[in-house]
């Protein structure tokens, strides 16, 4: 029983930050039809910026309550700045190009930003554990877990809800859905698709950065931090369905729980199992478990 509780709790925690990150990735794909490898950069930069900010707060003995706004602001800052730069100077020039080249371009951007991290933040790892320490520990079903990790789950839920609400109940959300469904028709209806693209990309970037920023206090932030996550978020998005938000949710849960199970039961299978599922989904149902509606042309 304890084993399953552990798997469930850890899986859920893991799924939470996977979800926040993958959500951004899948929305970007759904709207812009781009598989953005540079999403890993948002994650890494979000984590580093948050770690840096937490460091400043700690070093200057500023009130601990500032931790959470700092994390949030880091994410927003990174999302806006990096997101804008990448969209404006790289992606905008490539929208009509072969999708492979676009993916490769985002891979190039990812590599550049990886090195920029070293230049900006150095090679030594950051350990911004203070926010996690601040919240302490709690006992759940006999397991001792940090409260901070549990708030991660809460954050993911909030993000999921806001997303659902935003997409279905607001005007902006409906615009987004329209562009996801068919870009050309949306344009013909007068929607400023370029603007939608920019906002979407930055929004997705903020989510990616948020995942990194919020996870930073639970781990050590060092160069190469994002490399594993990039492929894992790809796996999530593929399993759930590229462009589908419920898909990102289900995909994260599947990957998170699978990984937690593997880690606790058969560590040798940890990575293998996730990608095996990704391969199986691609073979059986390439569009993913929850593919968004596609207009049938012809």
């Amino acid at each position: 029983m304890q084993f399953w509780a552990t798997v469930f709790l850890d899986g859920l925690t893991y799924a939470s930050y996977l979800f926040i990150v993958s959500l951004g990735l899948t929305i970007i794909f759904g709207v812009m039809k781009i598989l953005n490898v540079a999403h890993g950069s948002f994650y890494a930069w979000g984590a580093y910026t948050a770690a840096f900010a937490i460091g400043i707060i700690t070093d200057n003995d500023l009130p601990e309550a500032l931790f959470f706004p700092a994390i949030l602001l880091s994410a927003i800052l990174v999302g806006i700045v990096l997101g804008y730069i990448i969209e404006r100077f790289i992606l905008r020039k490539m929208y009509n190009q072969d999708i492979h080249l676009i993916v490769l371009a985002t891979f190039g951007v990812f590599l550049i930003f990886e090195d920029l991290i070293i230049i900006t933040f150095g090679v030594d790892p950051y350990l911004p554990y203070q926010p996690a320490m601040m919240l302490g520990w709690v006992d759940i079903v006999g397991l001792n877990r940090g409260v901070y990790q549990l708030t991660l789950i809460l954050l993911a839920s909030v993000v999921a809800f806001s997303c659902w609400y935003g997409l279905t109940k607001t005007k902006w959300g409906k615009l987004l859905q329209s562009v996801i469904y068919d870009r050309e028709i949306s344009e013909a209806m007068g929607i400023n698709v370029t603007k939608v693209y920019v906002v979407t990309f930055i929004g997705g970037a903020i989510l990616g950065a948020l995942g990194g920023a919020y996870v930073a206090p639970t781990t050590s932030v060092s160069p190469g931090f994002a490399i594993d996550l990039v492929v894992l978020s790809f796996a999530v998005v593929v399993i759930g369905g590229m462009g589908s938000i419920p898909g990102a949710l289900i995909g994260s849960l599947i990957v998170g729980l699978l990984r937690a199970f593997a880690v606790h039961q058969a560590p040798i299978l940890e990575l293998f199992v996730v990608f095996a599922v990704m391969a199986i989904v691609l073979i059986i149902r390439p569009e993913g478990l929850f593919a968004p509606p596609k207009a049938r042309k012809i």
Partner: protein
Amino acid sequence: MFTGIFKDTSVRVLIVFMISLCFISSFILPDWMQNNFMYGLSRGLAILGLMLLWRTNLVSFGHALYYGFGAYAVALCQKYFGITDILLRFTIAVAAAGILGFFLGFILRKYREIFFAMLSLAFSMVLYGLLAKAEFLGSTDGMSISPSTLFGLELTRQYLFFLITFFVICAAVSIQAYLRSTLGHLTTAIQDNEIRVEFLGFSVQKAIHIKYVISACLAGGAGGLMAASLGQVDPDSMVNWNVSGELVFITIMSGSGNILAPFIGAIIFEFIRTYAFEWAPQAWAAIVGGTLLTIIFFFPGGIWSIIEKVFNYGKKKDVK
């Protein structure tokens, strides 16, 4: 299949290039450069394989699967069978990768574009996951490989280089023979109009499958030769997704215009790497990223298109 192949201009240029390279490297240029040539030629085989797929608008984001599989096949054959002969090693690497490619090909041949790319990535990460955690294969530390032999005799690095060049020539000439054949022309035909190819009587999936196996063999051979040259295999430098990314990067950088392009591109890559590590070791990733973007934006035909322009080379009635 090979009739008159040595009259083909591309083949002639390639052979002249390779022989000159051997000569210059052995007698004129400093010793350390020979390593770059060796690694460049070895890796170039994998790039040649990716180039074949690229010509049908298929990009494999997981070709490190075969590259690493070939390398590990060599390592395992040494560990369990004591095989060190270079001819055997090369054959084993090529065959192992080819067999794997044959079976996975049945699945992959049904997919196109992003699904093909993602599925190939997934397969390669499955192997990575297995290798990274497998204790008996050295996990992330990998395995070491002792120097190769030839018919029982010790093989010096100099002669290893010659042999690698020989293997490369054999492979490249075979590929050129393939490209100028009807089956090879189906490559571009499929990219142009799949439906028509089916109605002309040939199975598109079968054509893609054949091509996929060829590219797997090439990547496997590359991995095997690299393993023999480096003396070491490990998952992070041979199977992980950024290795696949690197291979695709070199493919785009090289251009797909000619069988010589992959080797020139791969050699240039080795030199860039050497110099980058000397002058700005932390900036390696940025250099790769920057070069990738430069190529995509300014030289989409890759280095080969630049060479063509400079030498006005492409203007032949030859098969491209």
